[in-house]
């Protein structure tokens, strides 16, 4: 009976707390808000049309080009960008590289949100979106399909990342006992998550193995799953560098000033990892290029486009990362990270959209509605990221802050205020 009363009191406290947290903070008229709010509203309108009148009403997709910008950018590129979460959690919890502990929470949060939004954007691109439940409920399991593997991995990995992030939610809500239980699950979940990640990052590449005759030979290879896996490592690390740099400027009041200097060390460490993975990736690409005897393909426009991607956005960022790390130039590492991200976008779009069906007489180009919806997905993710970072102990440590009493009278860290 006493337990029921305690639970009721706790639920009331949490309800009040949630209502206080739901109130907006800060200025409404910031440049980001002024740009993002109209785009999000327009995107919602486009989605209403998409779900009532079908894909053809807002996209340039066809039977010839069933996969377009939403799959190529939102899903295939977005999931590569989310690779930072598994790389960092592996480094911290398995390799015990404690130096990177301060960036685990933002990395896991951005990874979780990337999967929720970018993999979630898959629903937009399904002609019959209600069929997305099929791989889970066993209706035409299709267990010999790569998509079956990818869909289960996405779902399980989202759950794994939610468990990895759940201690932050528990700290925010003031659930101390639950926080201890969830914290104990972290290492097991990280190992499970890293296993899933390495399989589905390569699984995304394996989706294109069945499209050998459609993809330009310069971008097709039997080793495309390995390319996708290796490139997801430097994509994720570069994303953390860029996102962390922006977060440190936007949310600087959330971070202990003493930790600003250690963040530069972390960036240089991430740059070292990115340089090594880019180097390995570059040689993998070179090896398959020689093995498949593709020299003759370099003479036309496709060949030049391929060289732009490989030399300009793989080899050059690799050199810049190495130079930046060696000379402790954080600025150079940041430039290299942006270039590596552009390289990933190019590679994923080349594989899934630009060099896909490259012999077709009529080419696919995304409609303005497809681009607006993609921007909407990105902006909405940033809104959610900002909402969470401003309220939960993501960039700051909850225990560093003095405690105060909630309206229900329970002492909680002020991080949840």
């Amino acid at each position: 009976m006493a337990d029921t009363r305690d639970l009721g009191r706790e639920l009331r406290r949490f309800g009040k707390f949630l209502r206080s947290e739901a109130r907006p903070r800060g200025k409404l008229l910031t440049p980001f808000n002024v740009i993002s709010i109209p785009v999000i509203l327009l995107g919602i309108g486009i989605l209403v049309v998409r779900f009532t009148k079908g894909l053809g009403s807002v996209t340039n997709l066809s039977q010839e080009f069933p996969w377009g910008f939403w799959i190529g950018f939102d899903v295939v590129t977005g999931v590569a960008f989310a690779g930072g979460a598994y790389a960092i959690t592996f480094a911290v919890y398995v390799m015990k590289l404690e130096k990177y502990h301060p960036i685990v929470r933002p990395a896991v949060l951005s990874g979780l949100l990337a999967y929720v939004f970018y993999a979630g954007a898959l629903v937009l691109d399904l002609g019959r979106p209600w069929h997305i439940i099929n791989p889970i409920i066993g209706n035409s399991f299709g267990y010999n399909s790569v998509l079956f593997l990818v869909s289960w991995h996405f779902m399980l990995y989202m759950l794994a990342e939610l468990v990895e992030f759940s201690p932050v939610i528990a700290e925010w809500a003031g659930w101390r006992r639950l926080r201890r239980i969830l914290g104990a699950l972290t290492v097991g979940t990280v190992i499970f998550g890293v296993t899933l990640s390495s399989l589905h990052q390569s699984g995304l590449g394996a989706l294109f193995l069945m499209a050998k005759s459609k993809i330009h030979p310069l971008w097709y290879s039997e080793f495309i799953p390995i390319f996708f896996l290796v490139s997801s490592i430097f994509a994720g690390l570069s994303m953390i560098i860029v996102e962390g740099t922006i977060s440190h400027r936007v949310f600087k009041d959330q971070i202990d000033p003493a930790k600003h200097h250690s963040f530069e060390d972390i960036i240089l460490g991430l740059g070292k990892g990115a340089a090594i993975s880019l180097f390995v990736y570059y040689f993998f690409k070179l090896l398959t290029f020689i093995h498949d005897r593709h020299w003759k393909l370099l003479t036309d426009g496709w060949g030049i486009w391929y060289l732009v991607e490989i030399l300009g956005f793989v080899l050059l960022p690799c050199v810049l990362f190495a130079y930046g790390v060696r000379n402790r130039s954080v600025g150079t590492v940041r430039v290299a990270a942006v270039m590596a991200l552009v390289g990933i976008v190019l590679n994923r779009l080349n594989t899934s959209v630009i060099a896909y069906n490259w012999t077709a007489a009529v080419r696919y180009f995304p409609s303005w509605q497809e681009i607006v919806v993609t921007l909407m997905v990105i902006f909405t993710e940033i809104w959610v990221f900002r909402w969470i970072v401003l309220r939960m102990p993501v960039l700051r440590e909850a225990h560093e802050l003095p405690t105060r009493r909630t309206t229900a009278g329970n002492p909680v860290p002020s991080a949840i205020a």
Partner: protein
Amino acid sequence: METYYYVNIFETKGLEYLLLMAFLVLFVLLVKYLQGPRKLP
């Protein structure tokens, strides 16, 4: 209709061996370069 072609795996083997050896040497050099200059005791 997908077209299949025979790949003579021996045709490029020499280059592949050279590339792998270059990779191993350059990889060691890259890691050493990334470590930075040796600190004096």
